[in-house]
């Protein structure tokens, strides 16, 4: 049987096992903590430029003026930072062409809802962002009555982002795409 290296004999196997166990715990804790303590995530970066519960059309991506790193530059974006702790949120977005998407994200970046435009499904999409059942139980007010036609999306967090992405076919289409994207909106909706 090969002899363990000298440094290992000096340190002692109990120390090595203990260090490995503690290292494992630190590894798990650090990994789990990053989405909650990181100051660099998308929600934090966008917070200053997005007023609450209002859809904002972002300027076209350009060098040094990108809203986020690695954000597809051949698209225009409309974003809405929401908080549904007081009111619900009504969202309307045009799905004009293939590639358009309407997506909802938690502050940690989880995409809990996405609606793509498809050949067979174009037009305007409307939905209401409501708290998830767990969140709603924390809230004393009576839930709002909804019609059968209304699409409700349960948000797992009070805060989040609505993102409408509109791919550009080319510079010649920018004005047309921008005009269509300006029709996207998000507005607070009373609970009762």
């Amino acid at each position, binding site marked *: 049987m090969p002899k363990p290296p000298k440094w290992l004999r000096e340190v002692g196997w109990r120390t090595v096992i203990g260090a490995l166990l*503690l290292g494992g715990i630190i590894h798990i804790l650090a990994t789990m903590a990053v989405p909650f303590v990181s100051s660099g995530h998308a929600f934090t970066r966008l917070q200053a430029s997005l007023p609450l519960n209002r859809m904002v059309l972002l300027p076209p991506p350009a060098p040094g003026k990108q809203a986020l790193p*690695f954000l597809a530059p051949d698209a225009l974006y409309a974003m809405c930072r929401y908080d549904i702790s007081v009111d619900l949120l009504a969202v309307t977005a045009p799905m004009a062409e293939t590639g358009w998407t309407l997506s909802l994200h938690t502050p940690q970046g989880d995409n809990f809802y996405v609606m793509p435009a498809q050949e067979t499904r174009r037009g305007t999409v409307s939905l209401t962002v409501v708290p998830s059942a767990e969140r709603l139980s924390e809230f004393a007010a009576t839930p709002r009555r909804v019609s059968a036609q209304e699409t409700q999306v349960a948000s797992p967090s009070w805060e989040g982002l609505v993102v409408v992405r509109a791919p550009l*076919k080319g510079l010649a289409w920018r004005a047309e795409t921008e005009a269509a994207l300006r029709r996207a909106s998000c507005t607070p909706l009373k609970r009762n």
Partner: protein
Amino acid sequence: MFVLLAVGGGLGSAWYMIEAGSRLSTQSSGPWTTWSAAGRPDADPYTRAHTARNGLLPLASTLEITYQAKADSRGGRLNSGCEYTIVMENLGATWWSLAAFDGQGGLIQNAAERYAFNSDSVMREPDGRAIITLARDARPGNWLPIGGSRVNLLLIVQDPAWAAAVYEGNAKALPPIQRLACR
């Protein structure tokens, strides 16, 4: 020694798994790599930490897959001293986009103000293929300007069928990144 080993090893290995990824959280196809559960609420902790730490906002990988390439198909680091070509064919996706970034995810300054091609904006050959050339200086056809010492390519494939195939581990091969010449 004990504390150094534990803290250094724990944090170092966490950093590696979050930044570089492993077979647990990423899938590769030639030079292209994707975080296979990116954007999904049920993503593994490494993917969630990678997304948060890098300020990314990916769509759920049930709809579209985002690939990144830092090297060409022969393994050489992508840089603007070289010229590359990518032939987009047989993707069959609803929508795709290919963009060039610097090493930090910033757009590369160029006079043409061109940063990407997508399935709607690219010029195609009569047989439907799209040949994209990446080079510092202008080239005929679909020229995607690059610059700086490090180049990262981002390929977004929007197609639920493709996403499902990636999830099951049998996605189609992605187009190779061929290095043509270097200065």
